[in-house]
């Protein structure tokens, strides 16, 4: 094969940041197919346009997801990459690997694909970038034999992901890694076989710092929190102050509820925990002195998504506090999740995310269907308009209360 010049991409080998072009050229040394990919990319740079078509329906036996079909729109000119499918490999919780697992993935991908990867895709999977249809099943066979499985794609449960949690973080309020592993394994059918109105993403963060950006990009955000008090080590507080931490401007002034006071003489910090909203600022600035509370669990938020179609939504609170109990296999959380899925599956239009369905149908209907209790923690403020629904059961409850009152009143009179 004659070496084509690629002056535009060569410009992106310059500079200090690691170059993706260099990475591709490393692969191209043993995989000629990557040379074609580079040539096509050079052409995209010249023409300022993509040369890929929509995904086709390709996959592996038994699954409806995990493979994204990808076809070049110039197959005659670039036959080597006429088909260039992506395989999503479900990452271990928290993206922890050992060198053996990395080498295993590399060996399988050397045998069956381009040798190019994304570590990782936005949803969390390890992405194997570029292979042909005949290789898909064999690649999956080898992955599966080596202990790997595919991730989600299409209208299914997408691969859940979690922050590093208790493995390397003192803020973790529950075992994010175990929960992620447990959910992923409990809902393998939902993950591999698209049967829902659209995608459903779960992201798990161990504390309100939300290192998986779950509120912005997960349908269901599971975020660690605590109900009791921040643990204060006053000696360490004094040490921070002695070492020059400007505690007023760096900590107190940034507290969103101004619930911290500092006794300059005693060098003690006092937190009015009832008014603390657990924003993590003080703890993040003074990790040696402050620790999350002991009564730990998570807040559940629902509905987050990017712009398309109606608008981007941030997830909103549907359950202020839930205990995440390994011993009962996270039964309470799973019951809530399954009720959400059932209601969404029954009511959503094609390609309607759960947040959009709630926007269309109303939180009232959603809460009834999922048996979740309306609480003020769910809203920034109550509604400002006088349009609200009344249901037959509201009147029935009123009547019942009235009758009960009458009975009480009647019995008083008879006495």
């Amino acid at each position: 094969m004659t070496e084509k010049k690629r002056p535009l991409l060569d410009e992106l080998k310059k500079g200090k940041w690691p170059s993706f072009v260099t990475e591709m050229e490393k692969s191209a040394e043993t995989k000629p197919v990557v040379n074609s990919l580079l040539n096509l990319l050079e052409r995209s740079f010249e023409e300022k346009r993509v040369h890929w078509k929509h995904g086709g329906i390709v996959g592996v036996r038994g699954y409806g997801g995990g493979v994204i079909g990808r076809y070049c729109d110039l197959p005659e000119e670039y036959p080597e990459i006429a088909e260039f499918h992506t395989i999503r490999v479900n990452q271990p919780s928290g993206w922890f690997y050992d060198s053996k697992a990395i080498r295993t993935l590399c060996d399988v991908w050397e045998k069956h694909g381009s040798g190019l990867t994304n570590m990782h895709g936005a949803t969390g999977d390890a992405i194997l970038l570029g292979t042909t249809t005949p290789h898909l099943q064999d690649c999956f066979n080898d992955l599966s034999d080596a202990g790997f499985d595919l991730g989600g794609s299409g209208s299914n449960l997408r691969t859940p992901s979690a922050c590093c949690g208790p493995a390397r973080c003192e803020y973790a309020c529950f075992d994010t890694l175990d929960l992620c592993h447990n959910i992923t394994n409990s809902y393998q059918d939902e993950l591999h076989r698209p049967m829902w109105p659209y995608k459903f993403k779960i992201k798990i963060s161990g504390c309100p710092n939300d290192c998986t950006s779950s509120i912005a990009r997960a349908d269901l955000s599971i975020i660690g929190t605590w109900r009791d008090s921040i643990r204060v080590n006053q000696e360490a507080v004094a040490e921070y102050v002695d070492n020059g931490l400007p505690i007023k401007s760096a900590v107190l002034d940034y507290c969103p509820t101004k619930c911290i006071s500092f006794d300059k003489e005693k060098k003690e910090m006092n937190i009015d925990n009832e008014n603390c909203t657990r924003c993590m600022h003080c703890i993040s600035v003074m990790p040696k002195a402050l620790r999350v509370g002991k009564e730990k669990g998570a807040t559940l938020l629902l509905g987050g998504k990017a712009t398309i179609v109606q608008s981007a939504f941030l997830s909103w609170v549907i359950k202020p506090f839930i205990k995440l109990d390994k011993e009962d296999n996270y039964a309470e959380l799973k019951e809530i999740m399954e009720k959400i899925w059932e209601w969404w599956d029954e009511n959503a239009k094609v390609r309607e995310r759960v947040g959009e369905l709630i926007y269309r149908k109303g939180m009232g209907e959603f809460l009834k269907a999922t048996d979740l209790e309306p609480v003020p923690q769910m809203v920034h403020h109550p509604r400002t308009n006088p349009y609200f629904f009344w249901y037959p059961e509201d009147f029935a409850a009123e009547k019942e209360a009235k009758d009960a009152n009458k009975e009480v009143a009647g019995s008083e009179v008879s006495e």
Partner: protein
Amino acid sequence: MTNPYYAKTDIGPPNFWNMLPQVIKDNYGNWLYHEKVKPGVLKHVGETGDELFTVRVGSPRLLSIETLRWFADIADKYCDGHLRFTSRHNVEFLLADGTKVDALVDELEAAGWPVGGTGKSLKNLIHTQGWIHCHSAATDASGTVKAVMDDLYDYFKKDDLPAKLKISMACCLNMCGAVHCSDIAFVGVHRKIPTIDDNGVANGCEIPNVVASCPTGAIRPNPKAKSVTINEEKCMYCGNCYSVCPSLSIMDPENDGIAIFVGGKVSNTRKGPEFSKLVIPFIPNEPPRWDSLVAAIRNLVEIWVKNAKKGERYGEWIERIGWEKFFEVANLPFTDKHIDDFTFSVPTFRTTTQFKFTDKK
């Protein structure tokens, strides 16, 4: 040709527990605190007194297996074979022996892998596929990101910014990734309505789905052609119809480009998560190094570095000074494009006489 053997399905991912280094297993859930050693290097201390060091390197996300094998070799050499990746495409080497940290950092740096991205630094840029592998990209992802990161490299290596700085990139409005809640987000945008290939629509697309895919109601069935029509006055070029119907191409090399949004965040720290807001409606595609984009982002970063108080994220700084003031400080024109006219616009309008006069308007 195809192997008649079919693999076991539904086995799930490898168990993370088997991937953890011993020091993590020993201190799992019992970490006491952490501190910065130097930019890119963290030390976590357990209740037992055990120490865990993390060395973070930035990667371009697109990695060859040659590089991954080299990372595995490095992990074997320094970390008993243990490493992890972050949600922002960094690689983290995990080791219990602090005396090996400097040698590890040196070897990574010597091979061109930058150590940094912790604390008050520029975080690694998260991004999408772009022209390498996506059908709907309005700009390239890896190319723009490489150009921007080359320019802002020093901010990744140091950690003396006012606060952390998260920049994100998406190559179309599908916004794979959390770009819509970033300190600075740049997004590939289209500016012309899709072209309609009536035959293609008739033969390959589900018309009710196409009509339903439009957020502005711009698409109507065209029964005569068994196709659709698009109302030019209503279309906002999101490309969602193209996602469901390949015969409505929205690609336009001449007019596609990039928009920049700022001031978003995802953490609940101090203030809750916020969407990023539009500041630059359009920058043309300028491969290979996107000079205008790089200059615009540098300007946006520098005005924040110069004006923000210690601890203020991008959006917190703007909230303090006000958006009207921001446009003055940034020396950016404010246009009709900046005022929302999509679904939830009204609550974004100013309903008070409280505002600052600026010399622009």
